[in-house]
């Protein structure tokens, strides 16, 4: 598989003495869903943080669509078409669901500062367009009932969905999800699986997702990368890794 859509090579990161990520390499083809699994503290979140430039990698490269992105400014990563969710949910607590979703579209063209101040017709059109796109997301994720609710008072599960919606509103080509199913019950996890399939099939979005729920991974992932102690332990199809004795010993348990 040459000229992969998204590719990480020899990526490393350490905090003082702690080597959180060590020489991690993998690649994802366009439209694939890649799951990253591994024990707690294996460095999965750190890996996502490296990709979205929260941390500077001590070495290695990240290529997306043929561009090297490991030196971009943090806010420029989105412009490349990468959006993410957070393990501990980072919503804008003081805003409503709708505003959160609209914020997801920050990178779309909404006119410059002055035209916004004067609310020029171009700005009005852009805003209406954004709202339309956001409504698509609302429809997809079934959030209509919560549209005008402040996120601060939503239950955990809904908040997770809103965060997913916000990332989708950015119309990314690559979606990074950090434990999207944590806190969801099996029924809800199943809904999530459908959404992920839709996202992949209808929107053509590539997904890299960190997840502990093996049922979800088994259901949607095309490929799985297993990490342990900052390193890639193995990779393969869900069935392959689930059968790997090392994965069972370190991660799945018997």
């Amino acid at each position: 598989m040459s000229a992969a859509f998204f590719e990480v090579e020899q990526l490393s990161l350490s905090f003082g003495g702690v080597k959180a990520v060590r020489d991690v390499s993998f690649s994802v083809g366009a439209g694939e869903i890649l799951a990253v699994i591994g024990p707690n503290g294996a460095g999965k979140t750190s890996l996502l943080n490296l990709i979205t430039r929260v941390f500077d990698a001590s070495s290695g490269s990240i290529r997306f669509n043929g561009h090297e992105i490991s030196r971009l400014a943090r806010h420029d990563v989105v412009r490349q078409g990468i959006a993410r969710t957070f393990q501990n949910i980072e919503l804008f607590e003081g805003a409503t669901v709708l505003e959160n979703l609209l914020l997801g579209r920050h990178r779309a063209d909404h006119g410059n500062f002055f035209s916004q101040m004067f609310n020029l017709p171009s700005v009005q059109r852009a805003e209406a367009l954004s709202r339309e796109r956001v409504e698509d997301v609302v429809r997809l994720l079934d959030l209509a009932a919560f549209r005008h609710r402040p996120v601060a008072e939503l239950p955990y599960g809904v908040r997770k969905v809103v965060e997913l919606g916000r990332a989708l509103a950015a119309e990314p080509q690559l979606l990074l999800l950090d434990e999207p199913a944590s806190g969801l019950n099996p029924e809800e996890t199943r809904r999530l699986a459908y959404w992920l399939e839709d996202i992949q099939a209808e929107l053509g979005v590539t997904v890299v997702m960190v997840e502990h729920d093996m049922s979800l991974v088994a259901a949607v992932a095309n490929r799985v990368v297993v990490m342990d102690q900052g390193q890639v332990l193995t990779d393969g199809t869900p069935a392959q890794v689930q059968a790997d004795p090392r994965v069972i010993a370190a991660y799945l348990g018997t």
Partner: protein
Amino acid sequence: MTALLSVRNLETWYGPVRALHGVSLEVHPAQIVTVLGANGAGKTTLLNTIAGVLAPSNGTVEFEGRPIAGKDADEVARGGVVLVPEGRQIFPFLTIEENLRMGAFARKDTEIANDTDQMYDWFPRLRERRRQQAGLLSGGEQQMLAISRALMGRPRLLLLDEPSLGLSPLFTKDIFAMIKRIREHTRTAVLVVEQNAAIALATADHGYVIELGRVAAAGSCEALSRREDIKEFYLGGASHHLPQGVAGGIRPARRRPSWN
């Protein structure tokens, strides 16, 4: 046998919103009880109300025969009911060691050092990092810390709000095994809210299902696991967990666009 914890008709509001509509449940000594329910059903609200984090506007909570409803959380905790809250409430700028020390804040005995060692044995990851600021731990590591901090308080009733959140499958199994072990050793009763209903029902003795702030079903875990509706909603379908590919399962119908 009298109940260790008995909750009767509990009602809790968030400002104008009623989240619990009169919930009753019981936990007996050395019993493991699980509470299941969809998102927003009110499970967290229930545990928080029992622990004194929220104040009920109606109903009673009795622990070892003493009423504890409406008391402050610290008093409830000192009385032997310790909650591991949703969303890992650790002390981010204290070290792991200090976090554990805070867990034993109300204790005066000399066993604290022993217990700390015990925690480190159960969670070796924490020993490695014990002088590190807790806020820098990974999500799962923080969850381990939250659980072990609660255990440091030697509770007689442990309230767990989604302990498996963010834990690897292996660790989830470990945690539930541990709950059982602790119960065996110290006869600590446990009330656990869990999304992973399969493992919760396998571990617990008794279960409650909460829907929209009311108890929708209750019974022994075996009985609950056999019920079709529970299999469907909480155990993820009858036999297989998730459909393989788009073909499997029944898709929920797409909603039409709605405006309000």
